[in-house]
């Protein structure tokens, strides 16, 4: 067997053992609790108006990003000394990082399933999606966002010298993700460019595309729903919510691309850190 693959296999199994021994399954429980809280609050207003639905998706995406980052943000930085010793003995950093990425896929899968099940319990989702039924589309989006955020956590952890630094960086990264989602503020110019490298923007785009947020008939603006005087009010269409396969696939593709960049940065930063080993 190729040595990199063999190391990937060894570290994948090690990650599972440590996951159990360190009781990291509690991250799945925490994800369930957060999902429950978010869905319980936003669930009853979803699919009533555009603003309520968008806010609901924003809360769900925020929860997904938080859950993902929290899975891994302290994982690598607390092992820097161990990695240095193992790197000197012949560890391939790419195998090490990929073992975390692949193992975390299964953790994120569990969290995405929980989040989706809890969402379905509180939210009455429409049946039609963009390219398939809506529920699988929502699930894929949430899985990609949680997993992507997890990979971003791996990257932050790789470049951080210790867990304190990583935990200090975490709120800034989260705030950046929330601000750049395009929900709280209108993004123009440089902020729009930066938003292109956030999971929140593309996560919102995918959910909005599946939910057809631009459909004014199904999802009127809040003002027209509240006041009959504004019944004919036409709100502005938002490109990233276009109910088209291209929009959805582009959003998924961008989430995947950002994740690949995070993986590459993680590998390079650990190689650089251990260049003298």
């Amino acid at each position, binding site marked *: 067997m190729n040595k990199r693959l063999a190391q990937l296999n060894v570290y994948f199994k*090690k990650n599972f053992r*440590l996951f159990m021994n360190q009781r990291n399954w509690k991250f799945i429980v925490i994800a369930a609790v957060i999902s429950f809280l978010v869905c319980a609050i936003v669930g009853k207003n979803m699919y009533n108006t555009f603003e309520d639905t968008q806010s609901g998706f924003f809360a769900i995406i925020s929860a997904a990003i938080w859950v993902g980052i929290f899975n891994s943000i302290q994982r690598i930085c607390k092992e820097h*000394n161990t990695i240095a010793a193992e790197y000197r003995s012949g560890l391939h950093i790419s195998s090490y990082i990929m073992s975390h990425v692949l193992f975390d896929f299964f953790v994120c899968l569990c969290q995405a399933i929980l989040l989706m099940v809890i969402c379905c319990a509180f939210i009455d989702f429409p049946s039609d999606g963009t390219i398939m039924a809506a529920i699988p589309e929502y699930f894929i989006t949430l899985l990609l966002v949680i997993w992507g955020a997890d990979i971003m956590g791996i990257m932050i952890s790789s470049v951080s010298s210790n867990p304190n630094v990583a935990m200090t960086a975490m709120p800034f990264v989260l705030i950046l993700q929330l601000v750049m989602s395009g929900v709280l503020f209108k993004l123009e110019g440089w902020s729009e460019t930066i938003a292109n490298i956030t999971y929140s923007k593309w996560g919102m785009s995918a959910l909005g595309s599946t939910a057809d947020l631009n459909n004014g008939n199904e999802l009127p603006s809040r003002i027209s729903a509240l006041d009959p005087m504004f019944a004919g009010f036409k709100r502005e269409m938002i490109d990233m919510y276009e109910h088209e396969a291209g929009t959805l696939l582009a959003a998924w593709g961008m989430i995947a691309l950002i994740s690949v960049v995070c993986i590459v940065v993680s590998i390079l930063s650990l190689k650089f850190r251990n260049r003298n080993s």
Partner: protein
Amino acid sequence: MDNKTVYYRPLPPKPATLLVLEPNDGIRVVTLEGDMKMGRDVQGSMCDIKLRSGIVSRDHGDFIFADGSYHYRDNNSLNGTYYNGIKLESINERGTRAVRLQDGDVLRIDRKKLDEPHPEAVVAIFSTSFGKDEKWNRCYLRGQNMVPIGRNTGYGISLTDFMASRNHATLMLTPEGRWKIVDNGSTNGVAVNKEAIVGERLLSPFDVIRIANTTLIFLEDEVIYNTVQSRPQHFDDSSRQVIMNVNIQKATTSGIFKKRDLLRDIRLDVENGDLILILGGSGAGKTTFINALRGKISQSGVRSTGQVLFGGMDLYKNFKMLKNKVGLVPQFPTTRDEDTVYHTVHDMATSMLAGDYTPQEIQMRIKDVFDRLMLNSLRDRFIKNLSGGQKKRAEVALGSVLDQEVFILDEPDSGMDFATRVDLMKTLKSCTETGEAILVISHAPDDAADLYTKVIVLAKSQRDEVGHLAYYGDVANAYSFFGVNKLSEIVMEINYEGGKGRADEFIQKFEMTRRG
């Protein structure tokens, strides 16, 4: 104390081995014990090493033990001596300059054209790593055009060395009629005449090939190679060999505006089974020293020059091949707390040896290491549940499974009470009984002073503000050398800050003692 003469006895000559190859003769293993003469076997010869070849002079050359190592000098013989392929030139009527011999050096008595050896050419390979009972095998090349070399292949050159890959290398006959060695992408590489090769290399007569711990000597129509024995459960003191030669010329901070030496002229040998204490005053360069030993020639703005040799091969030049020979066990464990001892060692072995070793071979290796380091009772314990000493033993096992030979422990006893410190040192001593060498930095050296085989004392000179070797030798001599009753008092003697500030005195005295 100041007016007393202090006698210091340098370390006695260590036995070394000379593997002598003469035409029409078997392989002779000669043990060097101090000064010895080499010459032709004629009636009345006074030589210690007698050679039958007609091209050897009666008093051909001398082996001299000085300054802790063996040297060779050709006594202006008729045909001269080639040292690693270079003829030794005469400098006076007594002979040539004496060359310091290192593991794997080749002395050759031959005519001028080395590619066409004289029928009576003699080759002697100096070694500090061969045992006197080493078993040597022959593989005849005549009539073959390809000979595979690998671990337990059962055909070609089948090595018993665990660190050799299954399909390690191949000897191939070129269309021009010359043999070449090809590295088949092995884990631990191939070295020819102490230099790691990349891909392939043409061979010349008497080239010395190193594959992991096996030495192969190419003799045009045959290859001879040793059988590597597995490490014994208990190491016999008489079979101790030098495994690491250290000759750090200097370690320098490489700032843009100012360069400053941190260490200078550190020369010492480490033998298997050694438990060596490293003592040093503040700023003496202990950290720089251990980094240099590990092959980190360039770290944190410090650059080391010199040599650290394993089996005669330079760690700095062949870092990739030799980096696993020496390892650091830092003050705080680098293992994962929530993993068991077995899984920690197993994962290290599997991930680093995978691809070439079967699971059964890896299990055998782990069993061997666990047996040697008495870890079987701790096998399923979490690392976090081990005592300080047990954790260090687990870390030694981690290196040992990858054939690490030298371990450097940085203050393993800090924060421990007296009883635990003593227990830890006893544990480390037991690790050395299976052949590993351990160097320990400790600030409580007297707890287990009788367990150390040697002491390294580094001291910062006030004259040049550089760390030097102020002593290297056994513990008993250290007391008389420094005129102290405790090892901890040595630091007081040499320290300028809070001590007596006698570093320069001892640096000079040790240097003079070495020179004899």
